[in-house]
């Protein structure tokens, strides 16, 4: 029994959200790009058995990704030169 459209979309949404929570620029962008690619592949797949196996694989990967994102948030976070820099704030005079 292949997963429903709703289930796949909800998985896609959580994968994307987890990918966006990486604090390192490179990892964040890679996993966002990868999630899009993976779910495009599921979308393009017509064989229900293949869809089922790709889906369960993506579920597995999401658990790994969740843990990785937490570790990355703990230790990552320097901004790269290409990223938007935070505006420099000065102490006000009052």
């Amino acid at each position, binding site marked *: 029994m292949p997963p429903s459209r709703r289930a796949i*979309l909800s998985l896609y949404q959580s994968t994307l959200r987890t990918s966006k929570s990486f604090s390192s620029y490179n990892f964040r962008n890679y996993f966002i790009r990868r999630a899009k690619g993976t779910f495009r*592949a599921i979308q393009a797949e017509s064989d229900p058995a293949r869809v089922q196996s790709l889906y369960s694989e993506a579920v597995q990967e999401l658990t790994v990704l969740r843990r990785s994102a937490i570790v990355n948030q703990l230790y990552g976070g320097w901004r790269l*030169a290409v990223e938007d820099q935070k505006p420099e704030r000065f102490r006000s005079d009052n």
Partner: protein
Amino acid sequence: MLSRISRAASRGPSSKVSHTVTGYRSRRGIVQPSGADRASVVDLPSTYKDESHFTPRADMLGFKLGMPQREESLKEKVRPIYLDMQATTPVDPRVLDAMLPYLTDQYGNPHSRTHAYGWEAEQAVEDARKHVADLIAADPKEIIFTSGATETNNMAIKGVARFHKEKKKHVITTQTEHKCVLDSCRKLGEEGFDITYLPVQTNGVISLEELEAAIRPDTSLVSIMTVNNETGVIQPIKEIGALLRKHRGIYFHTDAAQAVGKIPVDVNEMNVDIMSISGHKLYGPKGVGVAYVRRRPRVRLEPILNGGGQERGLRSGTLPTALAVGIGEAARIAKKEMAVSTVSSFVLDDDYARSPFHASCYPSDLPFIQLSSGNDFRAGRDRAHVDALSKRLIEGINANVEHVVRNGDVAGYPGCINLSFSYVEGESLLMALKDIALSSGSACTSASLEPSYVLRALGAAEDMAHSSLRFGLGRFTTEAEVDFVIQQIVRTVHRLREMSPLWEMVQEGIDINSIDWSQSHN
């Protein structure tokens, strides 16, 4: 009352101390007490900063600002973007996730056979061995964990040559090998072996005829790297393997540290007998590598490390479980990314409309991954990404800067682009590009200002070898980073050339090579 007590208290101990000291003096003990009279006063260095040296500023209103070290560096530092993937690659977060259990709770020794801690560690190591073997189409029993590609290269070259030293005393390698291969060969040369350093053609590839001509009856080993670390040149390993298979008794070693996980590698197709793999070049941890040592026909070599007989007796010493798991997971991911056929995933077929769910349920901004024309479809998603970035970088620089030469074969690995910017000094370019982490050559030699010996072997002139930059692209490089690099490079090269008198002369149409720089009086 209070003052009297305190006075008595302050006097009390001191008198007692003096008493005991005299007691010690009178009685000779084994341990001499170190009294204050023997201590010497040393001034604190001027750079020393103690907590108490902190002087609050007026705007702190008496509050002391305590901030952990890390937060402080987070606030200020802008990290340069990383384009030195040939030196090392970042550890993939998924690899780290696989390693963490073995760095925390599952700390058993994989060689312990008597308890569950050992069993689970051994199981993890064997799984990792299988993943690495799958990536290069080998048997898990042929995989030996080492500390890195340098150790593997040493083990292979010295081990094979020394094992066969009674009958065979000749080793062939190339001039563009990594330092550790060349240095191992130099060491063998000191021990009385004959070493042939094959030259390379101007595109960095060796010629098979020259290799065949160099083979002697007493040749025991040929060592040629798969992908060069400085130029990205891919050697024709398959053809070399086929050629060497015709000669009996010659072992073929290849240093595939830069190749595995990036280009398809198959040890049986390539007829490789020994192969070196490094963990930290395929998004794994540093400090672990793999030696592939063929079992049939059996490769015999003398181990460098002797001891407990782990790893078929070729590399004794307890395996680092976490690192082995790391390289295994990295290999698994690399294999999986390669298996993703970029074509079938991104070309939508007619069944699309009838597929279980519809296009309309997707956000419409999903981009398609663009494939570059010369894409090797066996190499998968990572490779397609690197190909596209590489094309973007080369086209971007070519469109904006003139007099740029690409060193090495154009058909080499696209993730390693070695460019020479004429009339600009490579090191000054590197210093001007402070927001980009780049290298002018191999990391091992980046401390010296000598031009790269690899580029010299390719026949590059001294000034071109001095002005080279190596761009390493990888899985985690983004398009925005490439665009940023193009913009920075173009700006800096133009600025440096504006300052250069040589560039001025070139603009005026003077041929630099025709100038006699020495002031000869005649």
